């Protein structure tokens, strides 16, 4: 793929996607919760921007709508809700360090390479542009998952989850010019409801275990103590 041959808008698209990926790394490594929420908001905004750019390149009008939706939801509403929740839960100053950040970051890098390797055989040569975008979004999804694995804080886990959704959205928009409107509306609605429910659960969790440390959720298990 020769970058110079691409139209400017597509070049812009690549830049934006790269920043989305970078923000995933930021999310992964960020120790301060508030900053992580900010990073997430930026990621959402970038995804919205990507959507808008795709809408502009492809003249797909309903994508403008989804761009607005994404911006509202991912960049504004959800971060705002998270913000409010952290304040309510007295977590503004909460920091959380990964146990071995270097290793986790290396793992994330490996996942990026893996994603790229994965999509390599996928598509005919003329569509390399799309393919690479898919690789990026796949990496964002996987890093989101990785973040959920390594973050012990419930809010951080939700951030990871939401960042996965960002990756999905990136893929949907950039590779396929967006999904049918019904589906997109449905997905957005589900994400919103999920966020509301997450909020409910933060409160329930704090009520029941006095903390949002998911490692302390270990009552339900089979190991330890003989069953008979």
């Amino acid at each position, binding site marked *: 793929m020769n970058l110079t041959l691409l139209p400017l808008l597509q070049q812009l698209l690549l830049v934006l996607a790269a920043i989305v990926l970078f923000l995933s790394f930021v999310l992964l490594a960020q120790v301060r919760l508030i900053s992580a929420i900010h990073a997430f908001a930026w990621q959402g905004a970038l995804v919205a921007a990507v959507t808008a750019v795709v809408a502009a390149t492809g003249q797909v009008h309903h994508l403008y709508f989804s761009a607005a939706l994404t911006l509202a939801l991912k960049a504004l509403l959800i971060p705002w809700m998270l913000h409010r929740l952290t304040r309510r839960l007295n977590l503004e100053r909460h920091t959380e360090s990964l146990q071995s950040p270097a290793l986790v970051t290396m793992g994330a890098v490996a996942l990026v390479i893996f994603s790229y390797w994965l999509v390599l055989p996928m598509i005919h040569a003329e569509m390399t542009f799309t393919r690479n975008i898919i690789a990026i979004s796949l990496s964002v999804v996987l890093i989101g998952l990785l973040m959920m694995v390594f973050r012990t804080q419930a809010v951080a886990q939700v951030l990871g989850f939401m960042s996965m959704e960002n990756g*999905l959205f990136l893929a949907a928009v950039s590779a*396929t010019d967006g999904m049918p409107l019904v589906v997109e509306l449905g997905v957005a609605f589900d994400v919103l409801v999920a966020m509301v*429910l997450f909020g409910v659960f933060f409160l329930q*969790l704090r009520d029941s*275990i006095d903390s949002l440390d998911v490692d302390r959720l270990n009552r339900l298990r089979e190991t330890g103590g003989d069953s008979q």
Partner: protein
Amino acid sequence: MTPLLLVLLTPLLGALALGLVRRPVVAGWFNLGVSVISLGGALWLGAAVAVTGEVSGTLGAQLFGPSAGLGFRVDAFNVYLVVLTAFVGVTTSIFSRPYMRYVLEIGRIGPRRMRTYHSMYQLFMFTMLLALTTDNLGVMWVAVEGATLATVLLVSLYRTPEAVEAAWKYFILCGVGIALALFGTVLTYFAAQQVIADPAAGLTWSTLYANAGGLEPAVMRLAFVFLLVGYGTKVGLVPMHQWLPDAHSEGPTPMSAVLSGLLLNVALYAVVRLKMLVDGSLAETASPQLAGHLLMGFGLVSFLVAGLFLHRQRDIKRMFSYSSIEHMGLMTFAFGLGGPLATFGALLHMLVHSLTKSAIFITVGHATHIAGTQSIDQIRGLIRTQPAVGWSLLIGVAAIAGFPPFGVFMSEFLLLTATMKSAPWFTLALLSGLAVAFAGLFRHIHPMVYGVPPEGQQPVEANMIPVAVHLSLVLWLGLAIPGFLAGWLDRATLLITGAHLL
């Protein structure tokens, strides 16, 4: 379209209305009424499908244009699941009415949460029915995610630390799984865009299936992995199953019955639909059976591991949820095996497992009510205290363990036969798995139903009609499969595998 609307709108409107009904007693009856109406709709739909072979159409075509609306397709495969879902919905709501009243009486929940419960119950039914009937993969995803959202509050309904924990795990794991499934859906859509002109139809299953041969194999392969891991989480395939026992054991018992009996089926239904697409796409490649092999692998692992899990259980509801994992594993294996015989067996197994397992969960609800605990060690002498409950539990477990003359035996017989024909060596694994699971179930069941009850254990008011109905149906299916059902399943088999069995 009318029956379809009846099936879908009844629970949706019911959910909204139930959110407003304040009196728990009324809500219980209302819930039952709503379920009965949807069952009526489902039966009507079934009759319609029996006559015409397939009912399809688009809802909201006027609103969004013919291609953008909600496409529906009800064929032999999903219609029996629709009827099953509506049916179990009714019987469970029969059970749920007195049971939840008891829960309310002992103060585990208040009237407000009771409202949530009933409303979510119907919402959950709606999402499942939607997932089953829709022709759009995207909508299906939305519906399955919606099912998660609807049930997650139910799991934490009791607000005990365990319940909250279980709900959180359920939410996170299924959320992640479903997100991965969405990625798979996106990839499928992406593959579809290469071959299907109308972008709006790119997620319509019927269209995709018709063009399955043209879908890019490399993309579909990738997509299927995501879909399998995603929906597989929801099916409860090992090693993504961990949410399942937690959610089943901590939620209210009627919820466990529908989760185990229905939700898992719906997720498996989704996997099978997608497998059909992938099979079409991979038919010409070097590994045409890839999807099947993956399913077989996951199925077998789930089956064996869940069987072992059964041996170390302390909680009766957890135990039966592992049993559900085991059976879902078996079905997954069978669908993976492919071929008309295995598919027919798996379809039948879906049916009988749902019926039996929901009957068992209902009985377990009564049993825990009698003993006042879910701990296996403290449930004793049920047959003496309340013979109806004790015997139902024992017979239900015998049925689920695959003893004739119950239907589970029939389907397991078919599955084993099919396995023996196409993959004889797996039979050994299946057999040892069955034996291990069997031992695991019965070693715990025995002391619970037999023996001398503890001092002061009293019988409770129990409505055993749903259990009796379910078990009689399973018995009937074990003795003879009625012709119309056989024809139905055969048509579904034809849809899935392209070949008749009969």
